Structure formats: C-alpha cells, structure tokens
C-alpha cells in the first residue's frame, strides 16, 4: 500500500516537473517561430542596431537599439541602487539589528514585496516624478532615473529576503572561529559571513535583476516612453517590455508589427537567459573552490 502511494506521488511530481519544461519549450518555440518569420522579412541586424522605432510609418522602421538601451539603462540603474542597499539591509537585519527592530523590518520588507507593480508605478508617477523634475530642474520627471529608483524599490524585497536567508544560514561556528582569532564584528561580517553567503547573495541579486528586467507596468508609467536613445539618465526612455505591452493591442495578428513585438520578446528572453547563465557560471566557480 505504502509502496503504491509512493509510486503515485513520484509519478505526480515527475509529471509536474515535465510540465514546467514543456511550458518553457512551448513558449520558446512560439517566440522563435514568430521571431524568425519576422527576421526573414526584416533583417536581424537592422532590427538590433536600428535606431528608429516607427512601426506605423510607411515604410515602417523596426530598430530596437533605443529600446535595448532604455531597458539596460533602467535595469543597471536599478541594480546600482538596489544591490548595495539591499545587501546592507540584509546584513543589518540578520547580524546587527536588535530583536524587535529586526522583526519590524522583516515584516516591512515582506509588505514591500506584496505591493503590486501598478501601485508602485502610480506612486512613482504622482510623487517621485514631480520631485525629480523640480530637484534636477528638468522638463519632465518621467525619466530613466525615476524608473530606476522605483524598480530598485521592487527588486529590494527579493534581494533583502534571500540574502538575509543566506547570511543567516552561515554556520555560527564560522563567526565564532573568526572571533576566537581576534577578528572584530565588522571584519567577521565582511571577510567571513559575506564570503560564505556569497552564492546565496548572488542568487538573490540575479532574482532581483530578473524582476527588474521583466517588469512592465511600473516602467511603462514612469519612464516617459520616448523611443529615442537618451544622452543621460535624466531623459525619458522606453523599455522593451513597455513597448510590447503598450503596442500589442494595436497590432494586426500575424502582421509585421505583431511579429516584431515577438522578436523583441525573443531578444528579452535571450538577455534574461544570458544573465542567468553568467550567474550560474559565477556560482559554479565559487562552489568548486
């Protein structure tokens, strides 16, 4: 009886595992199909390095360089803000904060993770954007910089919670060993704790970046959506995700514009894959060591 139950559970788990692979393959297949058919009509090189995105002009232009630059700019900006702040917050919560403050901070961070991105976008639009406009004295507050700040907010809970887990699971004995050698608390955190928790922290950063790259709603609302290559972070930009979301409704199914959006998705997929791959490379290296 128990054997049969075990068998059934094993089958179900196996099935679920296979299912998730099937989904990924299907999505990827679909992207490839539409993307390739687009590239056949409109060259892949022109697509990637083309500077102009005029999908409804005659003839249409499908250059996504400005969108790639927009996405990269906003993402990198968000990381520059979220990674150091997130890691320091995690260190503070797990190593330094007194018990009560720690509990409060943890629930606040969890709360932050639960805020839907539309709300973050909206708050950013009405509160942060005017602030940025006045503070930097620029024509509009809807800029790459504003987007980066809001996205950093969204990535932070992921980075903090997962890094905090990783830091907390560093064996107490490591710290004790370092203390017994005369290390100060700060030296121990920096040289021992952070080092031992590094794989987990890198995973946290990658998941955070993943959330930022894929984010659509908030960036659509606060980055200004101008499809041109910006000269500084204080100009409006448009990201790949926002383009897909904003324009999908206006396209004719199967049309060139429609397939162009799939091609963007393919590029996005490729970039995400690359990020994960690099992360794995790092993790693999630190594990073998």
């Amino acid at each position, binding site marked *: 009886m128990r054997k049969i139950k075990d068998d059934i559970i094993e089958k179900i788990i196996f099935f679920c595992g296979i299912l998730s692979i099937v989904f990924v393959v299907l999505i990827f297949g679909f992207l490839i199909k539409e993307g390739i058919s687009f590239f056949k009509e409109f060259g892949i090189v022109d697509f990637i390095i083309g500077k102009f995105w005029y999908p409804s002009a005659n003839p249409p232009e499908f250059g996504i360089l400005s969108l790639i630059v927009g996405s990269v700019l906003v993402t990198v900006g968000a990381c520059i803000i979220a990674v150091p702040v997130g890691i320091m917050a995690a260190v503070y919560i797990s190593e330094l904060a007194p018990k009560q403050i720690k509990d409060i901070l943890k629930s606040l961070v969890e709360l932050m993770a639960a805020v839907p991105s539309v709300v973050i976008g909206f708050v950013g639009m009405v509160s942060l954007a005017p602030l940025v406009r006045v503070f930097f004295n620029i024509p509009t507050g809807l800029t790459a910089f504003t987007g980066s700040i809001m996205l950093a907010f969204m990535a932070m809970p992921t980075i903090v919670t997962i890094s905090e887990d990783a830091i907390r699971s560093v*064996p107490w*004995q*490591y710290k*004790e*060993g*370092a*203390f*017994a*050698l*005369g*290390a*100060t608390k700060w*030296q121990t955190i920096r*040289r*021992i704790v952070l*080092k*031992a928790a590094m794989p987990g922290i890198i995973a946290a950063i990658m998941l955070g970046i993943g959330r930022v790259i894929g984010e659509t709603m908030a960036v659509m609302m606060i980055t200004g959506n101008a499809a041109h290559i910006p000269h500084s972070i204080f100009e409006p930009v448009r990201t790949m995700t926002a383009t897909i979301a904003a324009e999908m409704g206006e396209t004719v199914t199967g049309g060139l514009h429609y397939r162009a959006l799939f091609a963007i998705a393919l590029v996005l997929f490729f970039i995400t894959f690359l990020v994960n791959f690099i992360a794995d490379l790092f993790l693999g290296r630190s594990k073998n*060591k």
Partner: protein
Amino acid sequence: MKTNLYQNKMLIDDLSCFFSNKCVLENVSLSIIKNEILTIIGPSNSGKTSFLRTLNRMNDFNSDFSRKGNVFLDEENIFHMNMEKLRMRVGMLFAMPIPLPMTVYENVIYAPKRLGVIKHGKKSEMDAIVEQALRDASLWDEVKDRLDSSAMKMSGGQQQRLCIARILAINPEVILFDEPCSGLDPISTAKVEETMIALKKRYTIVLVTNNVKQASRVGDRTAFFLMGRLIEIGGTAKLFVSPKEQKTNDYITGRFG
C-alpha cells in the same frame, strides 16, 4: 598567593558565571602556570566550557551571560582589555574543527593578514608564516602539496590540526582547547596530543576533555569540576593516584559521570 617557583600566566579570582541568572560556575579560583598543560575534567554540564569561554571572553556575545569575579592575564584584568587584543593573546580551539570556507593557505594566513602582522602581504613572508604554523601543528608534510585546495576537503583530524595552525599563526600566549579530540579517531587523537605536548614549550595550554585518560596522558596539572564548582586541582599524577576528594576519586574511577 604567588608563592610557588612557577610563574602564573593567568589567575582566576573568585569567578562565578550565570546564564540568565542561572549559576553555572560558582566561586572558582585557580591559577594557570606558564608553559604548563592544565587539563580540566568533569562530567557533562559541570561548567568546563563556560569556564574556558570566559577566559577569552567568548561568552560576551551572549546577552544572557553575566559574571562576577575577575580573570588576570599577566596581572592585567582581561575584562578591562580590548576584546580583540585579548583573543589574539588567548586563542581558542573548539570541539568541532571549523576551518573557514577558504583554502588551506588562506585559513592559516587569514588572521595574521587581517591583524596586520604582515605589512604589505609580501608573498615570501606569508609563505614562511604558513609553513612554520603548519609545521608546528604537525600538518605540513600532509598538506604541503595541496595548500591551494579547500580546507573543507580535509579529514577531521587534519582540519583540527589546521585550526591549531591557524591559531599558532598569530602567536598567542595561551591556547584554550575545548574537547579538541571528541570527534576524532584514536590515531588523529594521538597526533593532536603529540602536537599539544610539543607546543607547551612555547605556549601555555588549557585543555578541557571528557576523556579522563587523555587528561592523564597530557596534563601537567588537572582540575576537576563538578556542577559548577572546582572540586580539586593538583599535579596530574598525584590527582590520579591519590585524589584528596572522594568525588574526584569516584569520577576518575568511572563510578559516575
């Protein structure tokens, strides 16, 4: 009090320790003589670890911990000293060997580098320190060809001796061992014991052990703890042959504990 020929390295004066007001060590007074191996024996929960960890203030991290009485290192009150400086002079080795998650080489050089013993990280200077420390810990011959591999891949006995080397690299004056052989096989144990005996020429050693035989093998003097009290302290040979206290006798003959 310091009337004997020997020089006191540490002096424990009427020390009592508490964990959240529970008394785990009661009015312990004893001295630790320079270049001796003082072994501390006693059944579980008799306060041996608590005692040892007080000597280099490792208990200070525990907010439940409090103490009365004083401990002197070369006549200087350790509770008035800088904690990090104290731990550089009074090193500690734990029951479980805990190499840091780095290579063998980095484990040994970690503390000297951090403490600025070596100025600009001159490679030849670091190599010399690592080799000397590993030799003193009788580990050099076993690891000299794999200094750059992870310390986590070594055997338990090797890891424990690596931990000894790590402490030796900062040249402490006193080394505290808390049941360093409890997880080791007899051969590794013998190696660690040999190492300790070789080390007492240059260091003062306090060894807590659950193994009465081990205490009789390596100890110059032995102290017997029971339920937070120091019952008896004296020359190892004498204590094992003719203890003054009945309780000591019961314990070393295996009648309880």
